[in-house]
């Protein structure tokens, strides 16, 4: 419960007290990280530990929060990224932080909820702040984009709600995870229910062709909005996939697996190909994100342990890397007033340290070995290849395409002979970048440390899924 109350409290404090320092905000957001770290023991229960349980609405809905290893990991991801993001907020956008805290509460709830409706509740609670962030703090009139984004995801959420209601009606009215898990579905029912859940998650992840909201929203949002969206929000969809879709509608996996795999692979290539020609750095990052998370989704859908572990690892890594990219873009834009590659160049000649960090993040995203991108991508590609070699080869193209566009970004902006006018990068801007760059190298070297956080729960989860499917995969 503290992971919900602390952020809400922080949000209220920030919204109503006249504090202005980014450091204080970051400190506020660090509280929950510290609390989380002290609870590492709680996270070591592979079966999950009930941390809160109260009746919420009638007989059917209980406010149940559970922490298991995967949850702990997801919470970790959230609490880790938030201070970084908060630290990068521009001075004139201070109120954004209040929204960000609120969103943190929602996200934490999503990851901990062990009741269908509570899950949905937090799911939406996480979505509202990001809507307002993208709307309120963007540079130009962003209404159409954001409303598209919201409706697009909202349609997905409503499909999920419908599915959950359907499922609950079959489970005798209870929304409790265990009851939903034990509900036997006919094939047709599982197709409908699974389809609804899948739609919600596919939109959020996003899987091709449900990605349409993504590029515009990333491009037009304030940098912190893009970070929150791509760093944490996307992970909700992926988390939902393994925690909610697969165990609950396991009977439908056989039907949806080839479809989702194909779409995910198409998305991987599609995003990659588009990214190589864009001019706007944010847009490139958006499409690269489509490509990367498509791979994660594909990895999950292979239903093997390599895919699950790799996917979870990659969620953290992608979160950090993409936040790093947006930090870079934000700093460049803040100092040069543009983020179009055609207008940039030559940053390296003036900002050596910045360029080094930039390059580390670039190669981290491009999954060079000994950087964080590699282990996850390796496991994911391995799992996809195991599922189907053609899918594996096609999704493997991502390492080529990713190299193409990431190097293009780096080269066009940092290298070259342009003498771009850029004001001094401040220390506060460097801190989050350094954290990200450090993580790129650390995870690149010791991925097993991260894997061990959640690997037992993954086994348990996979057991749930295979039990629900009736066949061990």
């Amino acid at each position: 419960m503290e992971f919900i109350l602390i952020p809400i409290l922080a949000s209220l404090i920030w919204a109503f007290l006249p504090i202005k320092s980014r450091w204080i905000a970051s400190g506020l957001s660090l509280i929950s990280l510290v609390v989380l770290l002290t609870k590492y023991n709680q996270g070591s229960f592979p079966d999950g530990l009930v941390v809160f349980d109260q009746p919420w609405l009638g007989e059917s809905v209980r406010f149940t929060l559970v922490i298991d290893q995967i949850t702990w990991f997801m919470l970790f991801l959230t609490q880790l990224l938030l201070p970084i993001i908060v630290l990068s907020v521009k001075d004139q956008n201070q109120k954004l932080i209040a929204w960000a805290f609120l969103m943190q509460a929602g996200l934490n709830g999503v990851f901990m909820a062990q009741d269908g409706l509570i899950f949905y509740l937090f799911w939406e609670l996480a979505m509202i702040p990001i809507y307002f962030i993208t709307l309120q703090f963007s540079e130009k009139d962003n209404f159409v984009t954001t409303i598209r984004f919201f409706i697009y995801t909202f349609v997905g959420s409503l499909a999920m709600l419908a599915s959950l209601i359907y499922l609950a009606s079959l489970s005798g009215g209870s929304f409790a995870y265990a009851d939903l898990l034990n509900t036997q579905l006919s094939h047709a029912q599982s197709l409908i229910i699974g389809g609804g859940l899948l739609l919600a998650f596919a939109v959020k992840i996003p899987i091709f062709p449900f990605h349409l909201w993504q590029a515009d929203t990333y491009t037009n949002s304030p940098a912190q909005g893009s970070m929150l969206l791509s760093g944490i929000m996307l992970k909700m969809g992926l988390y939902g996939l393994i925690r909610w879709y697969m165990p609950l509608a396991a009977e439908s996996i056989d039907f949806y697996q080839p479809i989702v795999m194909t779409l995910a692979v198409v998305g991987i290539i599609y995003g990659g190909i588009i990214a190589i020609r864009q001019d706007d750095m944010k847009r490139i990052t958006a499409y690269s994100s489509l490509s990367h998370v498509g791979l994660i989704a594909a990895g999950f859908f292979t239903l093997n342990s390599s895919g699950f572990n790799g996917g979870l690892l990659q969620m953290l890594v992608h979160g950090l890397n993409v936040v790093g990219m947006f930090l870079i873009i934000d700093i460049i834009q803040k100092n040069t007033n543009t983020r179009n590659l055609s207008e940039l160049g030559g940053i390296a000649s003036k900002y050596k340290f910045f360029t080094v960090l930039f390059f580390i993040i670039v190669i981290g995203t491009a999954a060079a070995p000994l950087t964080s991108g590699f282990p996850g991508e390796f496991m994911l590609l391995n799992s996809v290849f195991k599922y189907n070699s053609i899918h594996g080869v096609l999704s493997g193209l991502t390492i080529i395409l990713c190299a193409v566009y990431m190097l293009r970004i780096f080269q066009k902006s940092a290298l070259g002979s342009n003498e771009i006018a850029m004001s001094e990068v401040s220390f506060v801007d460097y801190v989050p970048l350094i954290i990200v760059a450090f993580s790129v190298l650390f995870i690149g070297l010791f991925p097993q440390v991260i894997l061990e956080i959640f690997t037992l729960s993954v086994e348990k989860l996979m057991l749930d899924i295979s039990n629900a499917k009736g066949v061990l995969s």
Partner: protein
Amino acid sequence: MNPIILILGLPLLGFLINGVLGSKLPKSVVGAIGTASVLGAFIIAILNWNIISQPENNSIHLDLFTFLQIDQLSLKVAFQLDRLSIWMTLIITGIGTLIHLYSISYMKEDDGFYKFFAYLNFFIFNMLLLVLGSNFLMMFFGWEGVGLCSYLLIGFWYKNEDYGKAARKAFIMNRIGDLGLLLGMFLIISQFGSLDYSVVFPQIATGNTSTSMLTAISLLLFVGATGKSAQIPLFTWLPDAMAGPTPVSALIHAATMVTAGIYLTVRCQVLFALSPLTNEIILWVGLGTAVMAALIGLKQNDIKKVLAYSTVSQLGFMFVALGTGAYSTALFHVTTHAFFKALLFLGAGSVIHGMHHEQDIRHMGGLKSKMPLTHLTFLIGTLAISGFPLLSGFFSKDEILTAVFLHNKVAYVLLAGSALLTTIYMFRLYFLTFHGQYRNHHHAFDKVHESPMNMTLPLMVLALLSIVGGALNLPTYVTHSDGFLLSWLKPLFIIPQSIHEINHNTEYVLIGIAVLIFVSGFLIARNIFVSKATVPAENSTGLGGILQNKFYVDEFYNKVFVRPLEITSSVLHDLIDGLILRAFTFGIFPMLKLVGRLNKKVQNGNIEMYLLYMVIAIVLLLGVNLIFA
């Protein structure tokens, strides 16, 4: 302390010190640290030679930690120093030391001096990672890592956008190969459940794996090799990679990194030995590359480009050897090639340095007198690569030719032709550079100078090695036993390397042919470039034009891959994403709005109309539910 830690650790330490503190340190210190770290690694490798060279297949292992543990698959950060890797280590660190030394002078004017040394050290570290790894994953780390360093070093002068493009091209083409390697690794995982050499190779050797699977794995690994070793179709990056500083070309793009593909194949000897189809493909790809690059080399005018195509061609030679199953021969050629090609590149660098960054051979000539040391060493290099008898290249090339002769006569003829071309273009280069008239109008002949000592010293060392390097694997007819390298590697091969039995008469004929090739090539070149003093034209026509334009391969790739990809990108973004999908998805809102506008017609403010609608609705409600229900 485990020697591997030191071997790997010293260059890494050098990289870290130079990378982090380099900007604050004086250049001499930076250079010293960089060179010393590599030299240290070299010395340690030498010191451990004895341990490795025990009669049984001895090796030193180092297991650091588990990198990834997925179910039963355990991927470890683990290294081994065995006969193959120590050989490679010595080449890498040995030549690396010389080139570091050379670079101290060559790069001393450059702002990025410390950066350069950091990159070089990092490259050495990665290259060592590649050869020292005891599993495919570690090799892949090094494999990608050297690609990354290559990218950094090619684009070292980052302000020049063309260099940047060349660097990117190198990295991306390498990545295409890397994908093949990666997929090969996935197949290995699925087949053998491990990536450790010590697990995989014995399993293959049992012969229980189907040939088609082995062929698939070996082909995928070979795709990786073509990327790194610049074979058809992925060779075009290497000539462009000459954008980097010359020591880089010498170290990375001649002596070490590009031979990673050969190392990979030798390392997986057991795998390749059991996939005959792959061997055949390797043979022909290598052969094609050897011939094609040699042809292109004939018409290049940039001193480094000639050497680059020569490298591609020589790499082709090595693959031909691999294709015939002569693994030790290939490695032998790797070694000798490292000596003389590094020598040639460094010599070229010395020329460029002396000519103040002039690279076009048409603007050189007559440098013999001004740069005697450079000239002499360059000549030795040229002779070595051309196969002047008893120099290192003569032996290694002869071994390859012999192996091919026994394997396939057609291939032999083609490869011999390629060797002839090698001699021609190398002497063309040599003559145009050092003989004849000085032809540069921008830059006075007086200002041309010999390079300083720490540039010529490596040249001399390498020249010496080029001369005597052949001793490393002297042919049977000289020693009446297996060559040193062959016997050195023998314990490593689980399946023994096929030894080509050949009677001495044939062998002498082949040697005769080789000598003939060298002589005729030399004479042709001399005739054209010394006697007639021909200077290559700006734009050749006909076949020459095609050769000068490198068979239009780049243009072909551009038309067939790059442009279509770019067009696809735009189409996907603007048309599919921007229009069609959007129309389908968000088109629903305009549609809804259209329906909403229709409502305007209905909601027109007129009470009578409203009443009429209501009555109609009542009629419908009543009619449907009372009468028809």
